[in-house]
């Protein structure tokens, strides 16, 4: 699965509404249990370009002030059970507390899981099929009522209803050992669900899985575990008033316009070792035009772009040219890969040599430029981005600006020495993907592969076109731009949905359609492997296998050019979301 980020929204020109689908990922390393205290105080931290990657910039413990955030478009929902945007997962932790969360610390340390609502990370039993969490004492909602383990259970069960909460991920749907007659908390409220989740007392919650998974803490860190009392559940309308369990509660909710969060006086610092809750309030303005947003961050009117996907092209130049701005910028590599999939169901891509020809002929530098240049991505050589467990440098097709000789050789081996014609699809409202398609069209033409380009709107792209294998096959579309980011940092989080042939869907499909038994076998092995290191290695092998099969032309590992706000304290990039951490921030 993959989490979404807000695309770098256009200045409102293209029909393209901005909410993008693909991926901003995040990665985490070993779920070790250190509950490291964040942000040191006192000493002025380092500054300069990329200072926020591994350091807490402008550290301070000063409380008070208003943190001003903005975003170009509203995201899917502020309901923890109905959201799939990285920025939303990052942000919602200021008003909601999941069982476990990511350590608010810079860089790779930010990928570490730390207990939040729970006293400690999950305790596994039954061969990692059962996971037990104990809630901290003294937890309260904003209305003063106590938070119990039943609320956690209810919250998790509630969001299983994907006809009501369409947005969120389906990990719990897929992995919990749910009774057969359970449909949803609304339709079958009386079905006993203890086989999936038990609450032996108000402090304890026990999850039962249908197959073992050693990384369950990654699930426990999902927003779905943010508690919701059944009595306060108003279904889809819950988004209008989310009951706060974190240090801030909603004051104003105007979807599409503005959210204001103020201090939640029922939150007790004593129950929360990871949050400092420095600002007095958060002001989040929605629907700010992209370039305007950048300019206001540059001038100091705004502190943070919630989307965290990077500045608009215009500001990229400013950052390059203005040393002062440059010193405020960070350029993290994210756990997301942009790539072009080659459809093995469509001739001549059913022949591996023809696929290889594309990989050899592609001009990677040009592709990198298409995706926004050096500041927007590193040239990718495999699916798995660095930072994901099991990642290893794989360069099966070492080309730089394209290797015509090898491409021609592959074409000959494929029986198409003079090249062939093929169709490529892309999201028409994504300028970068459009540029990638155009770039590939140019570089493939050099070896005689003639591409016809076909753009579709994002809203239709996966439901009706690129994500509908039957359509792709009927219309002989061999190539498609795509992107993928993990929900957390292991191979499971990144690869299973796109390379496992058993997850191919009839529509809304992101799977590459590899259909290689060897790959599926590696996936099965990885699922069953309880040892993390070995499991990661298996995912690495699967990645290599896919590259061997030349099913995908990786383009870039995405990077974002982010600007630190003026007068913002404790600002740093968290490895969990590859954007600024929203828990630690303060205002001077």
């Amino acid at each position, binding site marked *: 699965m993959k989490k979404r980020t807000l695309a770098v929204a256009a200045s*409102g020109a293209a029909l393209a509404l901005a909410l993008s689908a693909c991926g901003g990922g995040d990665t985490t390393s070993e779920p070790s249990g250190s509950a490291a205290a964040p942000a040191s105080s006192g000493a002025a931290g380092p500054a300069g370009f990329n200072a926020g990657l591994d350091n807490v910039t402008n550290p301070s413990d000063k409380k008070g002030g208003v943190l001003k955030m903005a975003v170009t478009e509203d995201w899917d929902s502020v309901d923890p059970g109905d959201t799939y945007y990285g920025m939303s997962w990052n942000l919602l932790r200021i008003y909601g507390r999941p069982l476990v969360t990511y350590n608010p610390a810079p860089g790779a340390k930010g990928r570490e899981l730390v207990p939040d609502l729970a006293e400690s990370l999950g305790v596994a039993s039954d061969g990692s099929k059962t996971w037990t969490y104990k809630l901290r004492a003294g937890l309260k909602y904003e209305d003063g009522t106590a938070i119990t383990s039943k609320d956690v259970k209810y919250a998790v069960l509630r969001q299983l209803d994907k*006809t*009501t909460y369409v947005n969120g991920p389906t990990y719990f749907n897929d992995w919990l050992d749910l009774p057969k007659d359970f449909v949803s908390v609304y339709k079958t409220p009386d079905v006993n669900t203890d086989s999936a989740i038990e609450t032996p007392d108000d402090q304890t919650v026990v999850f039962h899985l249908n197959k073992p998974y050693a990384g369950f803490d990654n699930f426990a860190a999902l927003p779905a575990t943010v508690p919701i009392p059944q009595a306060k559940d108003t279904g889809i309308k819950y988004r209008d008033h989310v009951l706060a369990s974190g240090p801030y509660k909603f004051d104003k909710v105007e979807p599409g316009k503005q959210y204001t969060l103020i201090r939640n006086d029922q939150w007790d610092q004593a129950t929360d070792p990871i949050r400092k809750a420095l600002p007095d309030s958060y002001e989040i303005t929605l629907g700010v035009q992209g370039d305007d947003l950048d300019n206001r961050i540059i001038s100091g009117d705004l502190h943070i772009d919630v989307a965290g996907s990077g500045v608009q092209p215009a500001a990229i130049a400013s950052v390059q040219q203005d040393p002062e701005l440059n010193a405020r910028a960070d350029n993290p590599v994210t756990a997301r890969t942009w790539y072009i999939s080659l459809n093995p169901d469509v001739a001549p891509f059913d022949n591996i040599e023809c696929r290889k020809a594309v990989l050899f002929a592609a001009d990677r530098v040009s592709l990198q430029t298409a995706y926004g240049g050096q500041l927007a991505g590193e040239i990718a050589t495999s699916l798995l981005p660095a930072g994901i467990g099991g990642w290893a440098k794989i360069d099966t097709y070492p080309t730089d600006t394209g290797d015509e000789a090898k491409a021609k050789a592959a074409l000959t081996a494929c029986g198409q020495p003079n090249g062939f014609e093929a169709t490529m699809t892309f999201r028409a409202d994504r300028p970068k993907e459009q540029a990638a398609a155009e770039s590939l069209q140019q570089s493939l033409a050099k070896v005689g592969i003639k591409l016809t380009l076909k753009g579709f709107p994002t*809203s239709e792209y996966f439901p009706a076109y690129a994500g509908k294998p039957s359509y792709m096959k009927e219309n002989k579309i061999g190539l498609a731009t795509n992107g993928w980011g993990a929900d957390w940092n292991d191979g499971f989080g990144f690869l299973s949905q796109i390379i496992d042939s058993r997850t191919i869907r009839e529509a809304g499909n992101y799977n590459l359609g590899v259909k290689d038994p060897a790959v599926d076998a590696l996936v099965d092995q990885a699922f069953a492997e309880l040892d993390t290191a070995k499991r990661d290695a298996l995912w690495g092998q699967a990645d290599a296998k896919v590259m061997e099969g030349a099913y995908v032309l990786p383009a870039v590992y995405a990077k974002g050019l982010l600007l630190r706000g003026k007068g913002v304290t404790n600002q740093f990039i968290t490895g969990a979301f590859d954007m600024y951490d929203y828990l630690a921030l303060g205002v001077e």
Partner: protein
Amino acid sequence: MVTYIIRRLVGALVMLAVVSMVTFSIFFVVPRLAGVTATDFANRYVGRAATQETVVEVTKKLGLDDPVVVQYGRWVKGIFVGAEFDYGAGVEHCPAPCFGYSFVTKKPVWPELLDRLPVTLSLAAGASVIWLLAGVSVGVLSALKRGSVFDRGAMMIALSGVSLPPFFTGLIALSLFSYGLRITAPGGAYVPLTENPVEWAYSLILPWLTLAFLNAAAYARLTRAGMLETMGEDYIRTARAKGLRESKVIAKHGLRAALTPIVTIFGLDVGILLGGAILTENVFSLPGLGKYATGAISTQDLPKIMGFTMLAAFFIVMANLVVDLLYAVVDPRVRLS
């Protein structure tokens, strides 16, 4: 008069019904002819992680598997008597006029439309005042100074004005005044009138001028033509022969007649504009009805598209009616029948 209005209102209603049917067909029937199935529709409105079962259920929940006539009937019923919406934890009654719930955001469409309306209203109000004043005064002056340097210059500018797409002038204006000189508000900086009238005007001045420029140019040309025609009329000569002051001849006899058709066109233009200034709103990222519509189209959010179309068509039909009534008031020769 009253019977006329009633007849026209009935006519307007019929018109809206036809518009709704055509719109509904385009979005619900035509794609089916192209082989799009009900679940294909539903696929657009499920999460990224939806299973096939979820898709089928969503199809049912949105009623997409019903015959189109049933769907249309449900939609019409919603407008007149309201509708029920299952929001998970219960059923909500969406009071009439209920234009349904967004397939994507699950929010009722009508309040969203009402929410967007002030933006478009603000844009239309400001721009139309500017273009009417500017266009008419330039047109009148041009006509009165026909052949002069002013006339030639103004008409050249006006012709350029109607030849410039707002998405070009808007971009140039934004780039120059908002991002270059930083003297006007950047795109998307809408402030409601009720919040702060000064900032409201500041945030809208560039969109106003962009939109007004285009229309002012057209109106200047129209006014000039109308004025020239009118000032050549016999009754103007009569007015002069009475010894009437030239200023009064122009104001009382010339303008009144020359402006009547302008007012008509103005009414219709404002009617169309109230349905959203798509290009201007998109260029300036203004959260009005036009931007709402383009957003709805890009997400294929059918209830939103239907709601928007009906509102826009309503404004156009109403503007037509108002203009016809107004014409009868202004021009005594027109009889309403």
